[in-house]
């Protein structure tokens, strides 16, 4: 009964938002509000069940439930930027359909914090695109600036030494925090360290990956990391990399004393596990190399001539 009532409400709201065409065929128009980009999001990152459920609820006209589902999705700790954008976009739409323009505005503002250059697809109804444009303009006028982060990426680093990571974070919202997440490549979980504000500058921050996390192992290995600024509710506001698309650096092997492990006495070379580790590594490397060569995109070198002049 409730769903039927909401379907009717959806039809009425669509009649207001979308004009006569929407009134003639309300449900297909609701479906149009969930563009095909959503399925692309699901394809490139691990699925967020809340997104799919919220889309179904929106299509069914169950806007209140969709809001609850989307808020549950936003409270998930490991959402990617793309998922955040989609969650806030759908939340904004759901709130609009419930008549909560202020809440819709809040959702779209959050969307713009996560992706300042985000534009709604042209398939959205003109009324919604118009509201979105007004919100963007308001943000510009009120100088509500999105959080931005500039990070000097970590280069290959020696083992057994801490790594200091410097970042510049502008317009960090009150209550928001920046963290560096890192893990050994292939490990399940990330460890994290906070970014601490530099005493001399309000925008300069630093964090340190402790030396004990970068122990020497006799050979180089890879670390994965990402930086995230999140608000008090742990919603991502900005970042570099994410849990599923982390940045990487190598922890280098020690230069001296790099001798090979002694062969076990009395056995053939094939009994030495290090031989097979080496063979496996070479095979994996060759396979990876072939894949990289086969899939790498052609690149070019671009010479650029720069000129300056006095402003008129």
């Amino acid at each position: 009964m409730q769903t039927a009532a909401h379907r009717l409400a959806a039809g009425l709201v669509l009649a207001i938002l979308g004009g006569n065409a929407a009134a003639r065929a309300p449900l297909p128009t609701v479906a149009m509000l969930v563009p095909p980009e959503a399925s692309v999001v699901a394809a490139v990152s691990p699925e967020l069940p809340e997104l799919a459920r919220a889309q179904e609820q929106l299509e069914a006209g169950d806007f209140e439930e969709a809001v609850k589902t989307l808020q549950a999705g936003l409270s998930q700790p490991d959402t990617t930027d793309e998922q955040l954008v989609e969650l806030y976009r759908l939340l904004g739409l759901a709130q609009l359909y419930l008549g909560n323009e202020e809440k819709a505005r809040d959702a779209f503002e959050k969307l713009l914090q996560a992706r300042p250059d985000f534009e709604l697809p042209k398939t959205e109804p003109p009324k919604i695109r118009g509201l979105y444009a007004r919100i963007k303009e308001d943000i510009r006028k009120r100088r509500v600036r999105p959080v931005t982060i500039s990070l000097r990426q970590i280069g290959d680093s020696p083992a057994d030494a801490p790594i200091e990571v410097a970042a510049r974070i502008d317009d960090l919202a009150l209550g928001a925090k920046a963290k560096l997440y890192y893990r050994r490549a292939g490990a399940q979980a990330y460890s994290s360290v906070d970014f601490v504000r530099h005493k001399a500058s309000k925008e300069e921050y630093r964090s340190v990956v402790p030396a004990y996390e970068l122990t020497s192992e006799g050979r180089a290995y890879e670390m994965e990391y990402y930086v995230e600024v999140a608000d008090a509710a742990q919603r991502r506001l900005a970042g570099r990399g994410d849990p599923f698309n982390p940045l990487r650096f190598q922890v280098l092997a020690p230069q001296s004393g790099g001798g090979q492990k002694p062969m076990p006495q009395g056995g053939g070379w094939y009994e030495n596990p290090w031989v097979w580790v080496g063979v496996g590594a070479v095979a994996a490397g060759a396979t990876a190399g072939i894949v990289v060569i086969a899939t790498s995109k052609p690149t070019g070198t671009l010479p650029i001539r720069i000129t300056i002049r006095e402003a008129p």
Partner: protein
Amino acid sequence: MRRRRGFVALALSGTFAAILCCDSPRGDPSLSFELFLSGAIADRVSSFQVALLSAGTALDCTAKQCLKDEVDPKRLVPLQDASGQQHTALLFPASLPDGGVQEVKAFGVPVGKDYTLVVEALSKSNPPALLGGSCTMKLEVKEGLNTSVLANPIDIRADGGVIDCDPRL
């Protein structure tokens, strides 16, 4: 009469050749009129930041603000420096040897069309501020060494004014 006309033509071509010769050591006539520049303006530039936006990325080139405040850095095309290191944008110390034109190179640019090149001039202050920037649109990058692109000129205010943002990406 024909002899006189020939003399005038010879004199004109000689003068033209002299201008090309002396103003542009590279022998590139298209540059000769763009080299003039006030030294005072050039002295205020510490470095140039070069970034490339992929096709379809919305950018308001008239906005007087830092690129990083306008576009998510994730939308920038990764570029390599001369050592092969990949960056979101390349930073080149300013050096205007020809009195106004500096040639830099971006490596490892993915082949494509409709790129937008954004060059920003950074001040010598700490942190640096934005002196000015320019957009050059509809660029195509082909495989291998491309022909040199003349970026649109960067307008810098003579009164010492800057745009109050740190452009570093």
